[in-house]
């Protein structure tokens, strides 16, 4: 017989959670296999050992708060609350004498009896009255201002007339006196002008002098520079000419030598021939 219980079978057997038929099969296997019996016994022993671990004492368990027992009341509670608040509102309104009404004039609220506001017609009348009052006042004021103004004007005219009549009484100077005064002024003025011009000429003299000196200095240095430049130019020219001359001499010398050479070779040739 080749039956061998699986690990799962062992566990099921160990915990007694096995079908009756399979159980018989394992019982038979145990009888035939003593080593399997020891294995089972060892497992059982382990179970006993770990079974020594006891429960911990628990802190007092949590409790769920029991909701209020009267569930009918629970249901009605919110409506009662609404009604109560409404009642409270009414009572407070009554005590404080609050009065709210709504008609074609609109929503009105107030403490005590409501005093109706003004209607459009009375408001118009009031506006008109106010306006006419204002116009009256303006007109009156204008009149008074005009009166004041004309009075003032008359006053001014009167005073002007007065002045005109007073004018010839102004004291007048004789021609001689005037001339004397003018002369005095003239002399004064000329004196001042003379002084000024004198001062000015002195200043100008200084400036011109300086200018002149500067100019002459400048001219002198310029002239010297120019002369120096001309001299160097001449020197250069002279050098260049000398060099040219030497070159020409050299060339002439070379030429004469070549010519001599030629003549000599010619002579030699003649001789050989």
């Amino acid at each position: 017989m080749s039956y061998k219980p699986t690990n799962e079978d062992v566990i099921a057997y160990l915990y007694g959670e096995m079908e009756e038929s399979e159980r018989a099969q394992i019982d038979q296997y145990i009888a035939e296999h003593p080593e399997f019996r020891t294995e089972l016994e060892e497992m059982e022993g382990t179970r006993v050992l770990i079974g020594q671990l006891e429960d911990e004492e628990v802190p007092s368990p949590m409790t769920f708060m029991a909701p209020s027992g009267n569930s009918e009341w629970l249901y009605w509670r919110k409506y009662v609350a609404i009604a109560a608040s409404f009642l409270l509102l009414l009572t407070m309104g009554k005590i404080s004498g609050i009065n709210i009404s709504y008609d074609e004039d609109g929503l009105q609220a107030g403490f005590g009896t409501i005093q109706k506001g003004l209607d459009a017609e009375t408001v118009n009348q009031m506006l008109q009255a106010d306006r006419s009052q204002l116009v009256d006042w303006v007109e009156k004021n204008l009149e008074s201002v005009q009166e004041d103004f004309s009075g003032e004007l008359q006053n001014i005219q009167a005073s002007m007339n007065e002045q005109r009549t007073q004018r010839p009484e102004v004291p007048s100077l004789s021609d001689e006196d005037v001339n004397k005064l003018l002369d005095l002024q003239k002399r004064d003025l000329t004196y001042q002008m003379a002084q000024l011009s004198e001062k000015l000429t002195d200043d100008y003299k200084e400036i011109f002098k300086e200018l002149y000196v500067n100019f002459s200095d400048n001219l002198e240095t310029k002239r010297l520079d120019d002369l120096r430049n001309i001299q160097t130019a001449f020197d250069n020219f002279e050098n260049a000419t000398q060099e040219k001359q030497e070159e020409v001499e050299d060339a002439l010398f070379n030429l004469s030598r070549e010519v001599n050479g030629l003549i000599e070779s010619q002579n030699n040739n003649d001789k050989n021939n």
Partner: protein
Amino acid sequence: MKEITLMPQTSFLIAAARDGDPVALNQLVKLWYKRIYNFAYKYFTDHDLAMEVTQKTFISMNKNLGSLKDESSFKSWIYRIASNYCHEEIRKQKRKWVFPFMKVQQSKDDQDFIQNTESTWRESNPDQEFAQMELKELLKKALTHLPEEQRMVVIMKEYEGLKIREIAEAMDISENTVKSRLYYALGSLKKLLEQWNINKETIHYEL
């Protein structure tokens, strides 16, 4: 293994709580609070994380109780919620950046602790209560050594007494996967406990 006999009351309470009976709801919480807390505690070995998961689980339970079709599947349903919150916490913890040297420190502490306990056991007259406390710590430590998915299966099976089918439902995996995870988990635990010199004799000696 403790026999979990909460189901008969639970079915009745669920029905009442679903109808909006606050007393039934609180009774339901009271009934399962210890289980869920211990489930989460064994998973994290941390009181604060366990409390966090427990409270979230029951808040979620309260909110979603109406969507629970079958009262008999309440158990896997509530463990499913709890295990989801556990996974969420683990993800959150992983996202937190931990100083490397702190990690090293912690593992060194573990080793020291284990060595100390071993030497204590070799002593001729151990303080029994003290040793018992240490056995508990070691078993917790052994659980934390398991990979997360194996740890969860073991806790559900060994400490919460869920059936293999219920675990499969709660974790959204096949029954065969549950069985094989249990098999390997028991194997690793056996090895660990042997390594730490914990066996039947030591237990009986201490008890």
